[in-house]
């Protein structure tokens, strides 16, 4: 049984990094990810009083997803098309330590670039599952689609990544 954070500050401490990583993998750059974290926490702050006990993860990730999509719409640009320099900047901006093998960093860059080439729905499902660690049911709640659709999106997303990564 998951415990439910009671204040937005607790939500920020417990989930801030997860939200940041979710946005980072979807958008491919740190600035958009930071903006999203702030926007999500603002919405959580507004929404916590009205929160009804249930799946907190589903509630939080629904807010996060909607905030991301709203921001994408607001900027009127596709989240699948980061500028090349943004992708390159990712390597320098990430928190990868100096002791991490260079080939691993290179592979991570390749995977990140491949992720950004996936259609949004597939990328979102894969990131929620493999980066954040949500269950299919939680992803279904967050994205408001049936579990069967989540299952299909994750599978197809991984198959696309396999093709892209060669």
């Amino acid at each position, binding site marked *: 049984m998951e415990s439910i954070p009671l204040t937005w500050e607790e939500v*920020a401490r417990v989930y801030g990094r997860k939200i940041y990583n979710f946005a980072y993998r979807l958008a491919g750059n740190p600035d958009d990810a930071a903006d999203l*974290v702030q926007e999500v926490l603002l919405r959580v702050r507004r929404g916590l009083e009205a929160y009804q006990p249930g799946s907190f993860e589903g509630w939080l990730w629904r807010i996060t997803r909607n905030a991301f999509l709203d921001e994408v719409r607001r900027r009127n640009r596709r989240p699948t098309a980061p500028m090349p320099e943004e992708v390159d900047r990712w390597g320098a901006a990430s928190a990868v330590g100096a002791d991490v093998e260079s080939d691993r960093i290179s592979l991570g860059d390749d995977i990140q670039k491949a992720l950004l080439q996936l259609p949004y729905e597939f990328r979102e499902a894969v990131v929620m599952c493999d980066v954040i660690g949500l269950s299919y049911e939680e992803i279904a709640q967050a994205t408001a689609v049936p579990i069967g659709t989540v299952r299909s999106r994750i599978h197809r997303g991984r198959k696309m990544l396999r093709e892209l990564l060669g």
Partner: protein
Amino acid sequence: MTHPSDAISAYLDGELTAAESRLLMAHLASCGKCVAEMEDLQRVRAAIRALPVVELPQGLVPEAEAELVPLRRHRGFWMGAAATVVAAVIAVAAMFSSPPQPNLTVEDLSSRFGARASLDPAFTPAKVNVIYQEGE
């Protein structure tokens, strides 16, 4: 032959029921194509899960650095899934008195995927400037 398609990913994620897992195992025991696909998908899945955790910029959220929170919470989940895998493989092994393919047995599948489940990077997420707890 009808291939199980997205059941393979769901199996890797521990999202199949025991009955669905048994059906998939039975199919894999006679379908090299799906075994190869499972291996490919397992590699992709592991690669995504091995992506380094990106740390929050300082000051973005209050006292975030003080918290010890895992980014992923697959460990407990996968322990259960691994147990399911073992149970499913044992059940399938009992169904086949003789393997349908001379070079592929249920035991092969067990060693390939059961062992990988326990070695999945989700058990030990990339440790990049992060201190992890043993679950949430």
